[in-house]
Every structure is written in structure tokens, then in C-alpha cells.
């Protein structure tokens, strides 16, 4: 995200309120834009109010139906498109594609940033294609295993859910390369295209073919977005496609990134998965002819909305990280690499830590206010949503959990800024372990009375531990930075009598 800081600083340096608002809005778009657009697209399909408006427009534009016919058929159309088949396909494809690609995108992200740093742009397109291939193969294998176990599912479900699943995996991978192009407008446009075409194709195909059409339509829409993003990557870095598996090496080298990404998404979703499997809340879909799929709508829906409440944290974090903190961070590393004295290094380190603490404090305060407002609004039911009827505990604790998840993400990203990959990897594994352990434990002891607590406790505990680690590490960051650098020396070996004799014979 090299270009972000520059643009944000330009806004902030105006010194006006509007400049700061613009900077915040820009950060929000960068941090949460794809998420907002994807959520909007899904909300359109899953929320009848949105659906009605959008479907009217689409049917007007793409069909010869009269207004009367359209209004008459929308209710029928909604149940035809948005039903158990669609919900199950979308939720499973979303959740498991993020888990499967979570690690891969971390490795690709590192691979691309290394190549940009070394100005070796030629391989980026090839590497992106390579990473797409590997994510597609893994997704395909996962889908084949799932449908191998639950063979009773209809053939169309097997084919189109697999396609949607693979498409979403591909989307997450290619979007990492697309964001590296620094063309943020195009990047957001790509997500807008993805969302819009998914909605249009779902409605049009759903109208003609029913559930199979809506799932296939959604997948097709995702593929339109993928194509555009791939084009962006090729256009920016060059369309050089060479058959090489050099990119695979970066998976081996950056294996910690693979674990970090995978366990982060596992930590986020595991409480949902456990809830799906629970007899209390999990709902089976065998009566619709769908085998192996279970969801817990009463849990998933408030938790999904809760995730959206962390958008301010992410936006604020991007803003302060890329502006105030980054300046101090850069100065510290400049002092290390470009001839600073030891006292220069220590002074800039202290300033950097001070700035980081004040930035964290700012983000935390900001998010607490937002969360408190949402809490208040939520409690008096100002938000009218389909969650009405859910227990207060899930709603309330979900929002707190999401806030802690936001803080956790901030702390782990800061740790990754200083390349403490091992620590982040262990933290993510810890979060996942607490979440899965407590999800099972709380279910077995308290039934469904403490839903959402496992997620909240897991991220709260890990956030505090992560913060402690961050502060402890930064206290000695200059020592750590020097000590962890490797010397550019060749690997040593030993030569013995037989070796030297053999070498002499070879050379003769």
C-alpha cells in the first residue's frame, strides 16, 4: 500500500477539517471498501427490501416485462432466487474460501511486496497466476472431499457450489495482486463490478433457472470481477506469463505467513462452524436435498452484522498507520540503515513507540465510542433488521467481540510491520485454540446461553497478550533488528582427506 500514505498525507497536510474527513473517508474505502461492496451485494440478495428495489431496476433494463408484471412477479422471484440453496452455497463458499486462501494471500502479498521492493516486476503476473492455480487446486480438492463424503447432494449443487467456491478463492487471491497496483479507484471499481454483476447475473439466471441459476449467476459475476482484476495486474506489472514454479519456493520460505493467514480466518470462523455443528442452533438442510450443510442463522446473522461495526477501527487504523506512525517508523529505520548514531536510533525509537501508543489509543477510543453508539442503538432496536428475535447476549457480545477482533487485527498488523511473524503465528493459533475450546466448552456447560463469548474472549485475551508482546519487543527493537540480520556469508562446509582426493581425481 505504498501509495496510500502519500495520498493521505496530502489530505492531512491541508490542515483543514475537510482534509481530515477526506483522509478518513479515503482510509475507510481502502480498508473496508471491498468488504462494504461485497456485503452490499449480499444484502441486496438476502434482504427483501433491497432486493425489491434492485430487482425492479434490473428487470426493467434487461427484460421486456411490464411494470405490472415485474411488481407481481418480484415476491415470487425472491423466493425463487433467495432460498436455502442460495444461502447455503454463498455462506459455505465465503467462509471456506477465506480459510483456504487466508494463508495463500499472506504469502502472495509478501512475495509481491518483495518483488516490488527489488523492482523485479516481471514475475508478478506469472506468480499471481501460479498462486491462483494452487488456491484453485486446493479448493477443488476440498470440494471433492466434501462432496465425496456427502455424495447424495444433487449434481448441480456439486458442480455450481464447487465453481462458486473456487471462484471466490480466486477472487481473494487476485485481489491481493490488484491492490498492489496502487490503482485504488480501479481496485474499488473491480469490487463494484464484481458485486453488481453477481447481483445482475443471480437475478437474471435465477429468474430463468431457479436456484441453480442464482448460484451459477453469482459465480459468473465473481468471475467477471476476477477477469477485470487479472487484467489490472497484467496491465500494471506486464502480461509476462512464463511457466515456472519459482513462486512455489516463496510458500516454503514464507511458511509462517501461510500459517498466520490460515489460522486468522480459522479463528474468526471456528465459533460459527462449532455453532453450525451444535444440535441446539445448527440447522440441517437434508429436507431440501442438501447433505452435509448446516447453518445457524440465529448466530451467523448478528455476528455478520457485528463484523461490520469494526469498519471504523480499520479505517482509523489505516489512516494513523500510514500517516503519523509511518513517519516515525521510517525515521527510526532510516537512522538504523543510513548512518545514525546510537543516540539518534534510541531517540527515534522512543518517538516511534510514543506515536504508536498514542495512535493505538486514538483508534481504541474512537472504536469504543462507535461501539457504544451501536450498542445503544441496538438496544433500543433502532436498527431494523432480520435479527429481531435474537437473544440480547449474541447481539451485545458479538459487537464487543468484533471490536476486540478489530483491535487484535491492529496489534497483529503492527507486529507484522516489524516482521514478528512467529509471534503473530503463535497468537493466531492461540486465538483459534481459545475460540474452538471455549465454543465447545461453553456449549457443553451452558448450552446456548453464552453464544458469542468464545469469539469475544478469544480475541480479547489475544489482543492483550499481543499488545504486551508488541510493547516488550519494541523496547528492544534496535537490538532485535541488528541481531536478526544475517550476514551475507556463504554456507560453510568441511573438506576431509577423501573429499580432496576425489576432487583432485575429478579435475585430472
Amino acid at each position, binding site marked *: 500500500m505504498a501509495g496510500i500514505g502519500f495520498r493521505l498525507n496530502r489530505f492531512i497536510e491541508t490542515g483543514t477539517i475537510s482534509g481530515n474527513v477526506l483522509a478518513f473517508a479515503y482510509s475507510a474505502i481502502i480498508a473496508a471498501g471491498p468488504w462494504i461492496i461485497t456485503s452490499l451485494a449480499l444484502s441486496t440478495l438476502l434482504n427483501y427490501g433491497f432486493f425489491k428495489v434492485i430487482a425492479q431496476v434490473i428487470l426493467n433494463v434487461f427484460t421486456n416485462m411490464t411494470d405490472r408484471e415485474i411488481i407481481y412477479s418480484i415476491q415470487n422471484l425472491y423466493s425463487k432466487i433467495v432460498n436455502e440453496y442460495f444461502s447455503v452455497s454463498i455462506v459455505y463458499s465465503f467462509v471456506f474460501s477465506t480459510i483456504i486462501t487466508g494463508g495463500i494471500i499472506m504469502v502472495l502479498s509478501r512475495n509481491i511486496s518483495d518483488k516490488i521492493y527489488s523492482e523485479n516486476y516481471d514475475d508478478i503476473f506469472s506468480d499471481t497466476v501460479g498462486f491462483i492455480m494452487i488456491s484453485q487446486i486446493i479448493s477443488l480438492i476440498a470440494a471433492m472431499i466434501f462432496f465425496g463424503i456427502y455424495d447424495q447432494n444433487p449434481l448441480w449443487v456439486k458442480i455450481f457450489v464447487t465453481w462458486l467456491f473456487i471462484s471466490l478463492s480466486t477472487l481473494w487471491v487476485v485481489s491481493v495482486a490488484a491492490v498492489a497496483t496502487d490503482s485504488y479507484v480501479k481496485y474499488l471499481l473491480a469490487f463494484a463490478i464484481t458485486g453488481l454483476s453477481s447481483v445482475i447475473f443471480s437475478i437474471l439466471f435465477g429468474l430463468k433457472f431457479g436456484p441453480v441459476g442464482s448460484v451459477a449467476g453469482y459465480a459468473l459475476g465473481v468471475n467477471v470481477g476476477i477477469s477485470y482484476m487479472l487484467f489490472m495486474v497484467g496491465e500494471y506489472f506486464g502480461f509476462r506469463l512464463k511457466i515456472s514454479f519459482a513462486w512455489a519456493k516463496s510458500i516454503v520460505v514464507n511458511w509462517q505467513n501461510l500459517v498466520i493467514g490460515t489460522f486468522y480466518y480459522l479463528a474468526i470462523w471456528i465459533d460459527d462452524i462449532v455453532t453450525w455443528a451444535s444440535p441446539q442452533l445448527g440447522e440441517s438442510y437434508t429436507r431440501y436435498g442438501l447433505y452435509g450443510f448446516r447453518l445457524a442463522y440465529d448466530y451467523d446473522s448478528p455476528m455478520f452484522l457485528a463484523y461490520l461495526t469494526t469498519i471504523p477501527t480499520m479505517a482509523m487504523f489505516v489512516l494513523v498507520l500510514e500517516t503519523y506512525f509511518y513517519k516515525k517508523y521510517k525515521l527510526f529505520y532510516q537512522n538504523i540503515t543510513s*548512518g545514525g*548514531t546510537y543516540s539518534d*536510533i534510541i531517540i527515534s525509537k522512543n518517538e516511534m513507540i510514543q506515536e504508536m501508543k498514542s495512535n493505538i489509543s486514538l483508534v481504541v477510543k474512537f472504536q469504543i465510542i462507535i461501539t457504544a453508539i451501536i450498542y445503544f442503538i441496538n438496544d433500543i432496536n433502532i436498527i431494523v433488521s432480520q435479527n429481531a428475535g435474537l437473544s440480547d447476549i449474541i447481539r451485545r457480545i458479538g459487537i464487543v467481540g468484533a471490536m476486540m477482533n478489530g483491535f487484535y487485527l491492529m496489534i497483529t498488523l503492527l507486529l507484522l510491520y516489524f516482521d514478528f511473524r512467529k509471534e503473530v503465528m503463535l497468537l493466531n493459533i492461540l486465538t483459534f485454540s481459545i475460540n474452538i475450546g471455549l465454543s465447545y466448552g461453553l456449549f457443553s456447560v451452558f448450552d446456548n446461553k453464552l453464544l458469542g463469548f468464545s469469539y469475544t474472549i478469544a480475541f480479547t485475551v489475544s489482543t492483550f497478550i499481543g499488545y504486551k508482546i508488541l510493547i516488550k519487543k519494541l523496547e528492544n527493537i534496535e537490538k532485535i533488528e541488528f541481531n536478526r540480520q*544475517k550476514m551475507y556469508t*556463504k554456507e560453510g562446509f568441511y*573438506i*576431509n582427506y577423501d573429499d580432496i582426493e576425489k576432487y*583432485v581425481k575429478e579435475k585430472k
Partner: protein
Amino acid sequence: MKIGILFEGTYPYVQGGVSSWAASLMRNEKNVDFVAIHVGANPIRRLPKYKFSDNIKDYFEFFLFSSYKFEKQPVTDEFMEELVSIIRYPFEEIYMGEKLFNVLKKYNNFDYTTLIKNDIYWDFIIKLYNNFIPYENFNYYYWNLRSMLLPFLNALTVDIPVCDVYHSVTTGYAGLTALMASLRYNKPYIITEHGIYHRERQLDLLRSKWVKDEYRIPWIRLFNTISALTYYGAAKVTTLFKKNQQIEKELCDDHSKLEIIPNGIDYNHFSSIEKEEKTSVNIGLVGRVVEIKDIKTALKSIKIVSESISEVKFYIIGPTDEEPDYFKECKEMIDILNIGDIVEFTGMADVSQWYSKLDIVVLSSVSEGQPLVLLEAMASGIPCVSTDVGACSEIIYGTGEDNDIDGKCGLIVKPKDFSSMAKAINELIENKEFYNSASEIGKKRVHKRYMVENMIEKYDGLYTGVYKKWLESDSGSTDL
């Protein structure tokens, strides 16, 4: 008895002084077996320039400027605390050498390369920095220390084959490795210095442009300390000639362990070389075409000689491939001086065959130990002109000691002084009486003092004596 003999950047890869001496020692010393141990710089495979004699039973090589994964315990805080407590800058070399020896004796089997990641090390280098150079680029300071320490730490950590006695042909890194093997396996070690290692490093550091001024003196004193440390731990310290021993005494309090064992050559072989009839005056320089031999000074002197003596030929007998740039510069100088018709580079050659053709041997080096080439020439009855480096003046003018004979077997000039060198060559050519006496004295001197048999006998006695003494000592008996 198995002798682990350690070389640093010489045998079996580089021809010349130390390597020729080592090959001769191992070939002629029939009473012991050898394990040749080479301490290399960068990890590369090379072809040895020497064939191993039958009594070389094993070979081992490792590289100083490389990274190894040692399967040893990392240094402990106790070790680091003791180590740091004895290092005080400016170093008092002899004091520190003794203290370091005691610490290394106590903690002799760590992976010392882990030292640079120890917190105590970090605090220590910060303290040094703040006390002495707080204005300096810290990044440079840190990496300078780390890169300079790496070879020392590798040398301290690496495990070499177990032998009965270790014999390091230098102090420096090889000396440290010998010291640690001696402490780890509880065996004695001896040091033989041809050139004085810490003096050579001192010259390198003073000459080098890449070392900042702030670092020169500390590094020089560190190398001095390493010499003091290895002298302190050694059972015996030998060198080739008196001047060297005087320098050793500066860093070695226990003079009883110091001994002089001159180089030796095969007198019978060289003295039996028959002179060939020839029409020109043949002058030879036997040695590698490298900068330290200062071939250019010899060329300039030959130019002067050729202006007064018409029938003169100059042969440079030795490999030319070691420093190709320097070889090229020499050829350019020959063109500029217009002496191409009288100068010839023979390349690698059997020097014995050349001695029959030569009338005078010239040695123009800026640094030497005790050059075998002078001894060989003298045994062949060839007077020499040499620069005043190393043991050259002892060899040419005599030591004045009982086991030597009086008189000059050539002439000594100052290094780089091509005019004096030309005068000396001219004098040998023109003064037949002096030429003949120099030829005779040379032969006699080598016969009396520099025969390989003498050298072997002394080393044989040295190995046996050190080993016996060790067996009789507590260390030896506990080990047995």
C-alpha cells in the same frame, strides 16, 4: 604420534615459503604421522598444489568467512559475564591474553558464534561505543564488529580431528583453533611463526584504505591480544630467526618456551648442481609474480645493470597466475623500460634446473620470513642480492653465532631501492674475488646451519619433548 599441523591460507594451496617448508617438514619427518589442517578464508574448492606425502594420514579444512550450523551449546551468560569482565579497552595484551586463556579453558566447547546475539554482548558493545565513539555511524560500527568477529568465532568453535600434538604454523585464526583443540581434547600445542602474524596484520590494517581510523588501533591491539593468548597457551613457540623472536618476546612473558629453528634445505641436492657454460650473465629471481615480491624494483635495477653490462639476462622463475593484474603491470613496465629482450618469465619451473644456469639470485621482496630460495641458491654456490627483510640479512651476512660462519655470501639493500640493488648486482659481476668468496661462504653457511636434516632433527625433538612433557604432566596422566 599424530601431529595436527595447522595452516592458514598456505599449504597445500599456495606455493612458496611456508608451504615449501611444510611440505619439506612433513616429507622428511618420518617418525610421526600428520593430519594437515587448512584454515581457509571463503568456502571454495581448490586444487592443492602439493601432493600429500605418505605420512599425511588425514586432512581437514574449514572456512573462516562462512556460516556454519554448529551443533553445540550456545554461549551462556556466565561465560559472557566472565569474558566481558576481562575485556578492558585500551587492551593490555599480555594481561588479557592470560585472562582470556583461563576463561576459554573453563568454557571450551560452546558455539561461540552465538555470542553476537547475546544480550551481554550487546550491552558491552553499546558501552564501548558510548565511551569511545558515540559520534560514529552505529550501523557501520555494529557490522564492522560482527564481520571482524565472525572468523574468530568460527575458529574458536570448529572441532578439528583429535591428534596427540597440535602444531600451528601461525598465531591468528589457526592459532586459536589449535588452542581450542588443545583445551578441548587436553593436548599440547606448539606454534611456529615464519612471519609474525600480528605484525603482518598491523601492516595490513595501517595500509588499508577501507578501515576507518577509529578502528585501526583497536583491531591491531586485538590481533596482538590473540597472539599473546596463543603464546600463553602454547607449550613451545618457535620461529626462524632472531629478529622475529625479539618481536615475539614483546607479547610472550615466558621466554623459556621461545626457540629458534631455522629453515632447512636439501644441501646435498643443491650443492651437487653442476654449473652450465654460458655466454651471458644470468640473473634470476625465484618466486611467485605477486606484489609482495616487488618484481618491479628488480626490473628497474636490471634496466640499470643492462646499461653497463651488455650480455645480461634476467629470468623470473615462478608462477605468474596468482595475481594476473600485477603480472600485467610487470609486463607493461618491461615494455616501458625496453628490456623485453633480456627479461623472461619462465612460469612454473623446476628451480633446481635453473640454478645451474644462474650467476646471481635476486630477491626484491618487501616482506619475507626466511626465504628458502636464498638458501637453495647459496647451497648451489650462487651469491645473492636481497632486500633487508625478514631473515635475509642473517642469511647473507651471518648471525655471528657459534653454529654459523663469518662472511658475506651476497649483498643486502633496502627494500624498494632499485639503484642500490643495481649497484650490488654490478659489484658481484665486476668483483670476481668477492663473487667467488660469496659463493663459497654461502655453501658453507647452508651446510653448517640450514640443512634440512638439522631442521627435522629439531622438530622431531620438539614434538617428542612436548609430548613427553605432557604425558608426564597431570593433564597427560588424567587423559590416559
